[in-house]
């Protein structure tokens, strides 16, 4: 670590206008990054430029703005492909978010592979967006949803995972990083194990893509889904990476303009990849914003960001341990910058209300992962999650606030 370049946190922060605001007359401490990140100026400016000067509907248009917009949009697709190290640019499908990406898969890949009596394998730490679509697919197809167990420390029980693989599920879909526990799953190994049975693996990368370098070819995952808005990009854009062979084999999901090659009253011929999966006017502005967010990340350095967040995590864990009756929910060996905790029997919602009044944005509740809450027999947690722009001082303010809440509520 000695020779890494100094991470210029003040410079990073200066690029995020939202961070310099006051909330209840207190400087905002934004620790709700697992829900969504703030946006750097390059992203906001990109959106503005698009709408002020470049806006038009792309593809098939002969006129200048439409041409330029098409080139910009397809260049952004290349940027995303390079960012994930996808083999082919047309393996990148733009969606509206992780939820949209996974619903696309549950529908299209589900129709391709899952029949009555088959099964689909997920883990017990999935976000609802990577759980309910598969659960509902299984209900519809009279298939079985297999759920790999979670250990007390908040890790996937790999033995259970292996034994469930022996049931030969048709699809495995697992989260890279848990949005509740912060667990970084050993997806390389989990993918390898699934591939021994030739089972395609979907990775829910919503919580990982902003925090570590993703190389889909090295991972060898079959699909990788994420949301722009958790990656410093605007809302309303997500990505589904898929291996070409799967995307070609899958039936389309939505139907409409652009995804169609030829339509007659009788039948429809669908367009090639990636357009086959992009029905309707795309969210060009947000896609260009996503490209700018990727540039921001590359300028800042994804390894630097990851390292910084790791230091924040360890500092926060140490500091929080000073609090009486602190209970960490999950203490996995490999943890990302996400901490879920409780204080004694204080309801997280009570504590959350008080911490809010101190200008600190954390999230309380079940974090759209009720099976995890069920697993630990708790109504919810308090969750702090970090991004590139967070500081050690903010952690001090946060820990002081937690202490105050604990005092008021015990």
């Amino acid at each position, binding site marked *: 670590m000695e020779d890494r370049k100094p991470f210029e946190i003040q410079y990073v922060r200066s690029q995020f206008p939202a961070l310099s605001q006051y909330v*209840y007359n207190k400087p905002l401490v934004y620790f709700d990054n697992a829900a969504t990140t703030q946006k750097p100026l390059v992203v906001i400016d990109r959106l503005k430029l698009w709408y002020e000067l470049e806006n038009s509907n792309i593809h098939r248009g002969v006129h200048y703005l439409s041409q330029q917009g098409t080139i910009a949009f397809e260049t952004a697709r290349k940027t995303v492909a390079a960012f994930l190290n996808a083999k082919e640019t047309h393996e990148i499908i733009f969606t509206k978010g992780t939820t949209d990406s996974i619903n696309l898969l549950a529908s299209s890949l589900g129709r391709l592979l899952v029949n009555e009596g088959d099964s689909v394998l997920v883990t017990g730490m999935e976000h609802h967006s990577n759980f309910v679509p598969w659960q509902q697919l299984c209900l519809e197809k009279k298939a079985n949803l297999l759920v790999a167990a979670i250990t007390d420390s908040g890790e996937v029980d790999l033995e259970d995972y292996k034994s469930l693989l022996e049931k030969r599920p048709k699809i495995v879909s697992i989260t890279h990083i848990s949005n509740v526990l912060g667990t970084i799953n050993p997806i390389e190994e989990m993918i390898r194990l699934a591939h021994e049975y030739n089972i395609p693996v979907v990775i829910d990368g919503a919580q990982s893509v902003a925090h570590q370098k993703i190389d889909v070819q090295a991972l060898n995952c079959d699909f990788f889904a994420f949301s722009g808005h958790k990656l410093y990009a605007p809302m309303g854009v997500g990505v589904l990476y898929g291996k070409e062979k799967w995307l070609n084999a899958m039936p389309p999901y939505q139907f409409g303009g652009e995804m169609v090659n030829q339509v007659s009253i009788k039948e429809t011929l669908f367009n090639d990849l990636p357009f086959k999966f992009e029905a309707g006017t795309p969210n060009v502005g947000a896609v260009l914003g996503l490209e700018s967010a990727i540039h921001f990340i590359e300028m800042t350095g994804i390894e630097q960001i990851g390292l910084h967040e790791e230091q924040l995590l360890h500092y926060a864990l140490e500091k929080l341990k000073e609090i009486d009756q602190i209970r960490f929910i999950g203490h996995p060996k490999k943890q990302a910058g996400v901490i879920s905790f409780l204080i004694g029997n204080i*309801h997280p*919602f*009570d504590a959350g*209300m*008080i911490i809010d*009044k101190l200008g600190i944005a954390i999230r*309380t*509740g079940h974090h759209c992962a009720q099976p995890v809450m069920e697993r630990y027999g708790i*109504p*919810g947690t308090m969750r702090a999650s970090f991004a590139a722009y967070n500081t050690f001082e903010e952690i001090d303010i946060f820990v002081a606030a937690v202490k105050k809440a604990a005092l*008021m*509520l015990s």
Partner: protein
Amino acid sequence: MTIEQTQQQIIDEFSMFDDWMDKYNFLIEMGKDCPIIDTQYKTNNYLITGCQSRVWLHASYDGNLISFSADSDAVITKGIVNLLIRVFNGHSPEEILAADTAFLDQIGLKEHLSPTRSNGLVSMVKQMKLYAQVYHLKSTQQTKHE
């Protein structure tokens, strides 16, 4: 005391607090004082949905006046429910139906009134009014039958 009078009393009490801390400390105290619901009613049937914390609410009617009891697993939520109970307890269904709840805004709990606020203050008020509605119908029907 009329509903309005209790509301005014609460407004007066809250006006003594200088900052939100005192206010929340007061709500926490009120939470501890909440007329605890009989355990037989702490079931899903009496659960108010749309809250991040769970709230159970029960109402009984003596043919004239309604009394409420409640519980929640979050103490601030319980404090807020208790405020509502203090206001509505011992009133007739018609009085409860006619009452407004603007006092919540005046004591600085406006943020809790947003329909999407996850503590479900709005759902609680709705539920109390629903009880009042039911008992109101019951009593008018009985009158008819008589």
